[in-house]
């Protein structure tokens, strides 16, 4: 009986993916190899239905930055229940449910609560800026920021906002006393 329920769960999962137009769902460790595999998969898929070049480039760009954020920033901490978050996260690519068939990229990863305030401040700042404001912020961060040990330049989120011209949608959900789950949704619309 249990086995039947489990099989049903897989079927439901399949239906949920279709209903939400999710074309790729991955949960686990994000490595450079995974990044390369997913971006080339997406490129090939978009080639197969002759997606236009500028859309392809945008999707590729946002995928790379999102995946690198996951691999570089996902916390190297262990949750109270023993879950190890290091370099792990959820990564979803889907189609937007609008008439002009844009894309969306969703990511989720654990973040230490001590870092949430700073991250929220950056997201809010990005969302308040217009095109020129984002350009200035990017230049400032490029000049003044330094590469972290993991090769993060603090530029990814700013760049995503610039390339898509969309506000960043985000949310933080409590995991336990020390960790939150950071969710980010990036829309790539046809304009």
């Amino acid at each position: 009986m249990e086995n039947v329920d489990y099989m049903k769960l897989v079927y439901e999962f399949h239906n949920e993916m279709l209903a939400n137009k999710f074309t790729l769902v991955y949960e686990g460790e994000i490595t450079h190899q995974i990044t390369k595999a997913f971006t080339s998969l997406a490129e090939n898929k978009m080639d197969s239905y002759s997606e236009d070049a500028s859309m392809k480039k945008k999707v590729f760009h946002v995928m790379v930055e999102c995946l690198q954020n996951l691999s570089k920033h996902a916390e190297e901490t262990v949750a109270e229940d023993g879950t190890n978050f290091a370099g792990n996260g959820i990564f979803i690519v889907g189609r937007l449910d609008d008439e002009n068939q844009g894309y969306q990229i969703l990511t989720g990863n654990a973040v230490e609560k001590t870092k949430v305030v700073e991250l929220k401040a950056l997201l809010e700042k990005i969302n308040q800026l217009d095109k020129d404001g984002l350009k200035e912020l990017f230049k400032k961060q490029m000049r003044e920021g330094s590469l972290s040990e993991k090769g993060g330049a603090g530029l990814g989120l700013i760049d995503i906002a610039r390339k898509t011209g969309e506000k960043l949608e985000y949310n933080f959900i409590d995991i336990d006393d020390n960790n939150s789950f950071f969710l980010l949704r990036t829309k790539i619309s046809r304009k």
Partner: protein
Amino acid sequence: MEVIKIKGTDDTPNVILDAESNIIEFSGRSLPEDVVTFYAPVIQWIEEYAKSPNPKTDVIFRLEYFNTASSKILLDILLKFEDILNAGSEVVVQWYFQEDDEDMEEAGEEYSEIVDIPFEMHSY
């Protein structure tokens, strides 16, 4: 001086650093797994080159794509060439972008606003 020739892959650029032939060129895609390690020999080479640069140096960028981690390192590279210019040699950046690639064109313009090196923009 040592010649550096790195053949590009789908995530690392072609790099030519050849003082004798006076060719300094970056082309292709740049999203290496570890940007710092990939570009370390490049930065080292430029620092060595700065000790006795050619009277005129053209720095050629013909990149199709680079990620934000690379964009930070590219600025570091440009700042090294700015030092060479400030020390009295002529330096010009030749920035190539595909005709319809506004992002790459804008990236070149942004760098030219940050560093004090003359940029010549070329579409292809």
